[in-house]
């Protein structure tokens, strides 16, 4: 009879202590999240080309619009046989539907060579197919495939008595997720 009682008591104690242990802890699960975004990339697919300009010694301006059309002002004309004019073109890729800001140069110089004092001309008034927001920043949106092609135009300032020759220069375009 004694043995039985002892066993019974022991089993009850174990059961009670198990319950108490359960009430000493509480667990909660939480999510850890991280989102990997597509890197923003930009690739130049077409140069900004003003073509062959005939200078009548008075100078003038040549405007390439983002749509690739060219306007010659004052006394400038272009060689009819020459068709080498184009707006610059860029392919942008990144997250689908993402907004991006675009930064264009203010003005750059193109010259006949890298030598100091080489004849040069200023290219300024850069324009683009991307629209400006209320703060006058260029803000565009990638399409639902995460890509977009944009065009860039500018104005070439030809000085009076500009020396004949081939003028080249480089400029940077920056895009950033908005």
């Amino acid at each position, binding site marked *: 009879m004694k043995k039985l009682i002892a066993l019974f008591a022991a089993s009850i104690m174990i059961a009670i202590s198990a319950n108490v242990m359960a*009430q*000493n*802890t*509480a*667990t*909660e699960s*939480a999510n*850890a*999240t*991280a989102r*990997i*975004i597509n*890197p*923003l*990339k*930009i*690739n*130049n697919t077409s*140069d*900004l*080309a*003003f*073509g*062959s*300009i*005939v*200078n*009548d*010694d008075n100078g003038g301006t*040549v405007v390439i619009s983002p749509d690739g059309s060219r306007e010659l002002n004052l006394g400038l*004309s272009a*060689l*009819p*046989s*020459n068709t*080498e004019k184009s707006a*610059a073109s*860029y392919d942008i890729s990144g997250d689908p539907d993402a907004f991006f800001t675009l930064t264009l140069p203010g003005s*750059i110089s*193109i010259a006949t060579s890298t030598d100091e004092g080489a004849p040069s*001309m200023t*290219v300024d008034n850069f324009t683009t197919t991307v629209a400006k927001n209320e703060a006058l920043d260029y803000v565009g949106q990638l399409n639902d495939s995460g890509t977009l092609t944009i065009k*860039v135009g*500018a104005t070439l300032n*030809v000085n009076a008595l*500009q020396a*004949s*020759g*081939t*003028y*080249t*220069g*480089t*400029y*940077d*375009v*920056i*895009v*950033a*997720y908005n």
Partner: protein
Amino acid sequence: MTRKILATAMLLVMFALKVHSQATVSGQAFAEVISALTADENSQMHFGRFSPEVSGGQIVLSPEGVRTAEGSVVLGGGMSQSGKFIITGEANATYSIQLPSGPAQLIHNGSNKTMTVDNWVSIPPAGNGTGTLQEGREIVSVGATLTVGSMEDNPVGVYTGTYSLTFAYN
């Protein structure tokens, strides 16, 4: 019995990503400046001296400067020459030559009598891209035909006039 509640804090895991959120690309800008086309008269077209004689006629002056008389016109001595123009511009560029579309009037110095110059001919010939600026220049020679009337229509004296040519890059 004190209850201890252990709570597992919520952990926000931030991965240190190399974030490609900005990209820069370099582009090139090109332009070519070409010398303007210029044209300067180098020698004046001159039909020289002649006499209409009985009924006048014509004097054909070739671009090479050779005179041929037709009708009763008799050529005299002295200088005669075709018109010559020096064209300059971008080396190896082609250009068009446009001759006058109609006659030019030469007016007598002293009266209102006139003679007509027509049938313009040039070397290189008129047309689109007929000229080429070898080493940036070329000479265009122009000849024409002078119509001479009778002695009454065209009395003795000097007759002068002007004519226009148009040159343009092609």
